[in-house]
Structure formats: structure tokens, C-alpha cells
């Protein structure tokens, strides 16, 4: 009891060997079946996410959200899917057909690939890859590719601009993310996600709060959600890389984005909040599934909270924040954690945990002091009076030259 997935797997393996198949083929068939079942389950969950996202954003914006179809509007996502399916599929002229059609598939498939390494419960997981953390980074790299393909193949300047911005953002935010990901690896002594969860008798957020926050921030940046949504900034480049997509092709991008947000929540909870750990989850693995999704949805909600509360930041602010704040902080945390891991005794877990926590608090304090000393400079720069509105300048400009025409609305420069 308590673990239906493995019960079914063992039963199926017995059935197949009864049919006289060799062990290699049984392993292959079970692996393929596992992939199909996991992908289907996650995709069905994805349909529900449309409802969750719309309902939560409605609450943040003081609205009710979908409430007409079914109880609490629960059938609304089905209606959305039907609408997307029967819409006309437009391929713009001059688009690169093959690349244009593959891009949304890659965008969704890369998110599904992430679920291969996530331990959903103590016994249920895709695979315990010994390089699980690095695998997450690798899949993130491929997801960048899907967006570039969409932006380039659409034959649209806005789409291309969106793709350029995406590359600038994702490639730079990968740096602090990878560095911060090494902190739980040091704490657990392994890159496998199952081992990392197993090592969290004390949640890693207690030992490494800064790394947890860094990964949360960089995860939002990797998602391209507000405040880091310059790659699809509606007020600047209409919709960014997916501007030309209609119908279900757009739907795949949309579903991929929602699922990616939930997946990032799941990754954060797995790395820092104990994943499937909770009361009774060792004896009843099915309870672990509940805890896992509870935590994942909590962080999904937190990501939505950030998205609908903060305004978009400019591209220079985005890059400055990354290279001048996140990256040095991540490097500091990594070095301090690595040194303390050698100094503090592994045998005494209480001393180890408190030592790590104190070190993190000291880093937070020093960072706050540095930021405070910097804040004076930053504010002064903004508060300097602009040289336009002074009466002397106004008089001088009237006397010397007729007021210059403002430059024509900047035409998209050739990229």
C-alpha cells in the first residue's frame, strides 16, 4: 500500500516476463511507459494551471476571475483549450516554416524534460541522475534555444528583438543560478536530486537562505516573468518572441510558461524545502506526492505574487542587478559555504546548521551595509534636476534656435 506507482510497475514487469520477454526489453518498455504516464499526468496538470493562474491573478487584481463554467469556473480551461484548438493557424509570409513549427514544441518539451529528475516522492521519481542539478541547467540552455528559434523564424522585428533580449537575460542569469545551485550540492555532497532531498533532515533553507533566495530570483528571470519580462514586454515589443503565433501553437508557449513556473517552484522546494519530506512521507510514499505538490504550488503562487505585484525593470537595470549584485553575492556565498563545510563538524548537525545560518546572516548584514552606502549615490543620480526646465535655458533656446522637432518615433533599426 501507499505506493501505487511501483506496485503497478512490479506487476507489469511480472506480466511481461511471463510473456517471455528478455529483461532488457522489459526495462525499455517500462521506461517508455513511465515517460508517457509522467508526461500525460504533467500535461493534464498543466490544463488545471490555466485555471489556477487566471484565478490567482484575478484575486491579486481585485477581480473574481473565471466563475461561469462549472463550480468556481473549473471547466473554463477546457473551454480555453477548445478555443485555441479551433482557431485559425496563421503562418506569416517569409517565416521559416519548419523552425517556426518546431519552436513551440521545444518550448513545451524542455519543461517536460525537467520532470525526469524531480523526485515526486521517496519511491516515485523519473530517474535518480547523479548529475541532476547540472541536468536542470542543461535543459534551461535548450529552452533558450526554443525561444531563439521562435523569434528568428517568425520574420518579425519585434519577435527578433524579444529573442535577443531573452538571450541576454537567460545567458546572464544562468551564471548566478549555477553558482547558487552549487550551495545545496555542497551541503548534500551530491548532485542527484534524490540524494539532496534525502540529506535534508534539516531543510537547506535554514543553512543557506541566501542561496535559496538567489535561486528563486534567478528562476523568475529564467521564466521571463515580471519583473524580468523584458523579452515579451507588452508595452515595448507587443508580445516578444511569440507575437506571430496563433491558436494551439501559441497555446503551447502559454502552457509551457505556466508549467515552467510550477516546475521552477518544484525545483526550489526540492532543493531548499525538503521536496517530498513531511510527516509520514517515509512510510506512506503517496503522502510525499501531496507534500511535493503542496510546496511546488506554494512557490508557484509566490512567483505569481511577484509577477502581479512588481513593475517591469529596464534592461540595463536587469543586467546591473545580475552582474553587480547577484553574481558577486552568489560567489561570496559559495566560497563561505565551501570553507565552512570543511571547518564545521558533519557529525554534529546542530553546530553545522547554526554555523551555516550565522555565516549567512553575517553575509546578509554586510550586503545590507554595502547597499546602504551605495544607495546614497544611486539616489543622488536620480534626484539631480534635469537641465530642461530651468528658465535660463528656456530663454536661451528661444533666442538662439527654433525649437527642434522631436526625433521621429524611432524606426526599428536594422538588426
Amino acid at each position, binding site marked *: 500500500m501507499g505506493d501505487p506507482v511501483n506496485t503497478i510497475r512490479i506487476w507489469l514487469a511480472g506480466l511481461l516476463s511471463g510473456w517471455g520477454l528478455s529483461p532488457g526489453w522489459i*526495462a525499455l518498455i517500462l521506461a517508455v511507459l513511465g515517460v508517457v504516464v509522467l508526461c500525460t499526468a504533467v500535461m493534464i496538470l498543466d490544463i488545471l494551471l490555466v485555471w489556477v493562474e487566471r484565478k490567482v491573478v484575478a484575486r491579486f487584481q481585485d477581480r473574481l476571475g473565471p466563475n461561469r463554467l462549472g463550480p468556481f469556473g473549473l471547466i473554463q480551461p477546457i473551454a480555453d483549450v477548445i478555443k485555441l484548438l479551433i482557431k485559425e493557424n496563421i503562418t506569416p509570409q517569409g517565416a521559416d516554416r519548419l523552425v517556426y513549427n518546431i519552436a513551440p514544441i521545444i518550448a513545451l518539451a524542455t519543461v517536460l524534460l525537467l520532470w525526469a529528475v524531480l523526485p515526486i516522492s521517496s519511491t516515485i521519481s523519473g530517474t535518480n541522475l547523479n548529475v541532476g542539478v547540472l541536468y536542470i541547467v542543461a535543459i534551461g540552455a535548450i529552452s533558450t534555444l526554443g525561444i531563439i528559434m521562435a523569434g528568428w523564424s517568425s520574420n518579425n522585428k519585434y519577435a527578433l528583438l524579444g529573442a535577443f533580449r531573452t538571450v541576454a537575460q537567460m545567458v546572464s542569469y544562468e551564471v548566478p543560478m549555477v553558482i547558487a545551485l552549487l550551495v545545496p550540492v555542497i551541503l548534500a555532497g551530491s548532485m542527484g536530486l534524490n540524494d539532496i532531498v534525502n540529506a535534508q533532515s534539516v531543510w537547506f533553507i535554514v543553512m543557506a537562505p541566501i542561496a535559496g533566495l538567489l535561486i528563486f530570483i534567478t528562476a523568475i528571470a529564467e521564466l521571463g516573468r515580471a519583473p524580468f519580462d523584458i523579452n515579451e514586454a507588452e508595452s515595448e515589443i507587443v508580445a516578444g518572441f511569440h507575437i506571430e503565433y496563433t491558436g494551439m501553437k501559441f497555446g503551447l508557449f502559454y502552457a509551457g510558461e505556466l508549467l515552467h513556473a510550477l516546475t521552477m517552484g518544484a525545483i526550489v522546494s526540492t532543493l531548499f524545502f525538503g521536496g517530498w519530506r513531511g510527516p509520514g512521507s517515509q512510510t506512506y510514499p503517496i503522502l510525499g506526492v501531496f507534500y511535493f505538490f503542496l510546496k511546488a504550488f506554494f512557490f508557484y503562487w509566490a512567483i505569481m505574487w511577484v509577477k502581479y505585484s512588481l513593475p517591469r525593470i529596464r534592461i540595463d537595470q536587469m543586467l546591473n542587478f545580475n552582474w553587480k549584485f547577484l553574481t558577486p553575492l552568489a560567489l561570496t556565498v559559495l566560497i563561505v559555504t565551501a570553507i565552512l563545510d570543511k571547518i564545521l563538524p558533519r557529525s554534529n548537525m546542530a553546530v553545522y546548521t547554526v554555523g551555516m545560518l550565522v555565516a549567512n546572516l553575517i553575509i546578509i548584514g554586510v550586503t545590507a551595509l554595502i547597499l546602504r552606502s551605495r544607495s546614497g549615490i544611486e539616489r543622488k543620480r536620480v534626484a539631480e534636476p534635469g537641465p530642461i526646465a530651468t528658465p535660463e535655458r528656456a530663454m536661451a533656446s528661444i533666442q538662439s534656435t527654433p525649437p527642434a522637432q522631436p526625433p521621429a518615433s524611432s524606426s526599428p533599426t536594422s538588426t
Partner: protein
Amino acid sequence: MSPMQIIFIVVAAITLSSAVMVVSVRNLIHAALWLIVTLFGIACFFAILNASFLAVAQVVIYIGAIAILVIFAVMLTRKVAQDTGPQVNVNWILAAFVSVLLFSGLVWLVSLWPGFSTPLPVMSGEADPLRQLGLALVSSNGYVLPFEVASVLLLAALIGAIIVTWDKKLR
């Protein structure tokens, strides 16, 4: 034929044919995308050989960094992405001859190696290959010197990039 052999043949066919596509398609972006398929196929070979770290590193470095940079550079030059000139010049017979000679020479060299005809040894379960790789990289009778030299080189490249792009007027 075991499932592993079938997977190997499929991956090998995809890798080789996409490698041919890289040098034969006329659109530069398409060539870059085929290059990504080729690199991914090589990552699959590493995965088949149980070298999971190399497989993932291959994807991170070659697809995540190098291929994206290539595409980025090509995307900035959309006008020249479509090449209309002839794809071969007069020397193609000589080039084909040299390539065949080189390939057969390599195959002959590899066939001399005793591991060529023996089947893949089964990995012992208890030793974590990733841990062994990590220890070999930092142990003094392992590869610590090349490892440190490579990291100093990369650090120098990093500082060099900052110096090259340094805008002195902003200081």
C-alpha cells in the same frame, strides 16, 4: 539485437546525417540548428556510455553556450544567411580522396586498439563515476595541474573580456 544496440544505431544515424546537413544546407541558421542536433547526438553517446557528467556538460557548454553564440552572431547578419554560390569548387575530388584516406587510417588505428572488439564492460555499481572524476581532477597524482591551468586560462579570458569592453569614459 538488444534495445541498447537499436538506440545506438538510431542515435548514430541521426548524428551522422545531421552532421552532413550542417555542411550541406545553404541557410546559415539551419546549419547552426543542425549543428545543435549533431552535438546533442554526441551527448546521447556519452549518456549511452554511462558518462552522465560528460553528456550534461556537452549540452551545457556546446548547445547552451557555443551554439547559442553562433546563432546569435548569424542572426545579426540575416542578409548574408542565404548563400547562393556553388557549394563545391574544383578541388572536391582531391578533398574527398584525402577525407576517405584519413577516415580509413583512423579506423585502422582504432582497430589496433584491443578494446575495439571487446563488449562494453559492465560498470561496478558501488563506485560513483562522478565522484571518481571529481577526485581525479583535484588529486595531486591525477589531473590537478591541467585543471588549474585551464581555470587560470579561463580567468584570464574573463578579465580580458572585461578590459576589452571597458568604457573609460564612464569612469
